[in-house]
């Protein structure tokens, strides 16, 4: 599966470096749940600095982020959750079987026209995309560059406080910048000049949010490091709540 995925990536990366080696995955549960965490494997853009070690940027926080988050969803809601996540590329046909996908470090992503069309189609049919962990003006531009290929005519807007996505399960009135684990060393919550967190979205014609954009924050790290004694518990809790609200919203709207 992963080999297919990787070959698809290499074919669609337009000269960009593709993931080099298969990444070991935890075994997928025999009977998948109603919700299975799906991570989007994308090609890196030309400005991407690469990930940690031999990893690609889309692998950031994998697999602990989804593992912890899935446990949280299972514990805090009545959603039936598959224990392990999946990794899919935009061109995987199976993507349509998972109406909720997560993409991380999207300041590094690159979607060619074919992939952008697929993501557009996926979202308009009813899919939901949560993007996370990108910071600063430069990464924003890189993200928008591909996103505009997905939706050339749909604006990216700040999510209003009253939007149901902030209230569907938890009333999320706090707008606190959720930092990466670097915070535990440096004490700063921002990265790459992204001082102010933004919760933004892209909506369809009926006012349904299709893309939840978490800019200048790192919810994935908060999930991943939920078991780190040094990582602030209140940040993890808030990150869980944002993630759960996005999920419940996607399952109700």
């Amino acid at each position, binding site marked *: 599966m992963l080999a297919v995925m990787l070959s698809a990536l290499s074919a669609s990366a337009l000269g960009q470096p593709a993931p080099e080696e298969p990444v070991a995955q935890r075994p997928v549960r025999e009977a998948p749940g*109603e919700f299975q965490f799906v991570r989007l494997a994308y090609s890196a853009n030309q400005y991407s600095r690469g990930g940690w070690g031999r990893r690609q940027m889309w692998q950031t926080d994998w697999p602990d982020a989804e593992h912890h988050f899935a446990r949280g969803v299972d514990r805090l*809601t*009545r959603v039936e959750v598959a224990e392990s996540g999946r990794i899919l590329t935009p061109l995987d046909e199976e993507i349509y079987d998972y*109406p909720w996908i997560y993409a991380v470090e999207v300041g590094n992503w690159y979607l060619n026209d074919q992939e952008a069309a697929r993501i557009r189609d996926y979202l308009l*049919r*009813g899919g939901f995309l949560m993007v996370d962990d990108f910071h600063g003006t430069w990464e924003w531009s890189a993200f928008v560059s591909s996103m505009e290929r997905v939706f050339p005519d749909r604006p990216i807007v700040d999510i209003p406080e009253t939007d149901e996505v902030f209230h569907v*399960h938890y009333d999320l009135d706090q707008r606190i910048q959720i930092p990466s684990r670097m915070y535990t060393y440096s004490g700063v919550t921002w990265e790459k000049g992204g001082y102010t967190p933004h919760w933004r979205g892209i909506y369809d014609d009926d006012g349904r949010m299709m893309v939840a954009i978490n800019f200048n924050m790192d919810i994935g790290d908060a999930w991943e490091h939920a078991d780190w004694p040094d990582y602030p518990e209140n940040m993890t809790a808030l990150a869980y709540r944002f993630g759960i609200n996005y999920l*419940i919203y996607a*399952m*109700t709207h």
Partner: protein
Amino acid sequence: MFEALFKYSRADYARSELVLAGDWPASFLYVLAIVAVVGISALLYMRRRHASLLQLAAIGVLQLGMVALVIWILLQPTLATDRLREGENTIALVLDSSESMNYGEPRSRFQAALESLSRALQEDDSPELSVRHYELGSSARAVDSFVDSRATAGATSIANSLRGIFEESRFSSLAAVVLSSDGADTSGGLTADELAEIAAFGVPIHTIGVGRTTIPEDIELAEVTVPDKALPGSTVSARVTVMHDAPASTHLKIYDGDELLQMVPLELGSDAGTTTEWIDVALTEAGPHRLSFSIDGAAGETELRNNTRNTLVNVANQEYRILYFEGEPRWEYKFLRRAVGGDEDLSIATLLRVSPNKFYRQGIDSPEQLQDGFPVSRDELFGYNALIIGSVDAASLSDEQQGIIRDFVSERGGSLLMLAGPSGLGNGGWGQSAIADVLPARLPPSTTDSFHRKKAGVTLTPQGVSNQMLRFDSDDVINAEAWRELPQVADYQLTGNLKPAAVALLNAETDVGQIPLLIGQPFGKGHAYILATGGTWRWQMSMPLEDQKHETFWRQMLRGLVATAPENVSLAAHSESGTGTISLRAEFRDDAFRAIDDISVTAVASHEDGETFAVAMLPGKEPGVFSGEIAPPQSGTWFFEALAERNGEPVAVSRSSILHESGQAEHFSFRMNPGLLQRLSEATGGRYFEASDLSGLPDRLRYSSSGITETEYRSVWDAPIVFILLLMLKAGEWLLRRRWSSI
């Protein structure tokens, strides 16, 4: 021959009783018989030396036979026959004067009927009977003679007419009825109750059938069945039945007012009889729609009036309420809501259990709606037309709540749809719940995991082919293909065995074989369905964005659910083809669908041209139900309004409308119906005759068992056969004696 030997006919013997009219005392006859036997035996004994025993026995038998015949003559056998007393009985001649009798074949049925009745009288050489003449239509009309009769009645009700004749003849002795008709009853035929009622009068009815049972040159639009109400933007299925006695090709045209909606080619098969087609008709605008269905006439067809039928469909401009209770967040919930989100006629309120401690509500009209969770009162739940229960444990609802759901279906007439899920159907313990009886399948126990997250294909069952909820295309073949091409559903659940009244509309093709996917059954006044998947959302996600099958399925499914659920206040108008009247039935119930009592109801009928008059509404046997009837003075669309009042204060109002067309019924189903006439005769002790052969009818009238009768005695001792036998016995003895000369 029989009559020549026995003096009277077989029928005479059959209808008579054989009695002995001789005055001889029985003792004399016994003595005579004994003396004859002893005398003959003595004489033969004396001759024993001159003949063998066999010869003596033969002579003895012949002599004893002759003696027995003489005794038989002395007894004077006589036929005792009951027959109508002269001048004291009446026979009713009934002439079908409905318009269908005008049909020329080539001579009109009416002429044939007139002639048959006159022949029945001419051939009757019976004692003088008083004869009454009746014209038969929607009721019977007494006339002096048939001289001025014409076939002009716009309807035929044989039962109603005969009832009238018998009522009118209560104080006279009605011996028999002779009915000459084509049997084309427009009131719906004769029911078993009506037949029993007519037979109870004890008067034999002899029927004479006129007309042809098959008319190859005629194509008839026999029936068009369309729901009398629909939702705006919905598609209604019209069931069109064409009667034909020969193969033909024609076209069916459907008009909404003057606008041609569709033209559908029809191939009428070579098998004579009927051809039935389902045609989908899309109705967009709210309000009454006068639909006209018309088929092109066949070559040489003369009766074209039966090629068109009109009907009225009321497209209600109202919102139907649906409650969807879901026990866990899941994709089916989201995509179901999306699918029907644009349907302004459906208001779907959802109650989703997001976590053990939180319900999330959507589609609610007010902050108070469903704020305490699932409804706990009849008033609250009965306000919805349909209820959907998803992946919910039965135990999450109290016994009282489950009882209300049961009443919602059985008493309120609502529709219940149960969806599959990890906690749905059998897994949720619904098979052991208070609503287990309501459901169309015997669900497996909750100890067995019947829910499977495995994909499954979907196919239409034969019963599902014609179901309006499952229509992607009006063409059956294309529709079935569309279902086959649908992406697999994401999961399925085993439902257990279907109940006797249940019908499977969809099947799932799973890794364990074919299983029922969509099942339905009526329960009480309502309906219950099981959709054994929570994964139809794959249709939306797996098909191109422009494909609307997922939306179409759910909109039609939910519209189908609410369409059968009655309102608590209703007024139904029905056109009675037999009597030409319109009957009204008004039903008034409160929000909990309990009958409203202590009310009086008045109704007003208004014609489309403005004519208005009041209709008397009388309370029926059922509480809250009132009925009335009008004889509309003209055809066209009639609007009705029923107002319920208590102490002069209005309580509720209901409206309805109907298209009434008087005088049309006689042009339909006008083929001669001998079966109806035969059943009528058999049930009353009469006989059915073809118009071409009325032999036996006069006799049947003369010896009718009904009326005032007297007994007629006719001797048969002097029948030729008696004397022939006497002669043969004596001649036989003489011949034997000559042959055996020794005796």
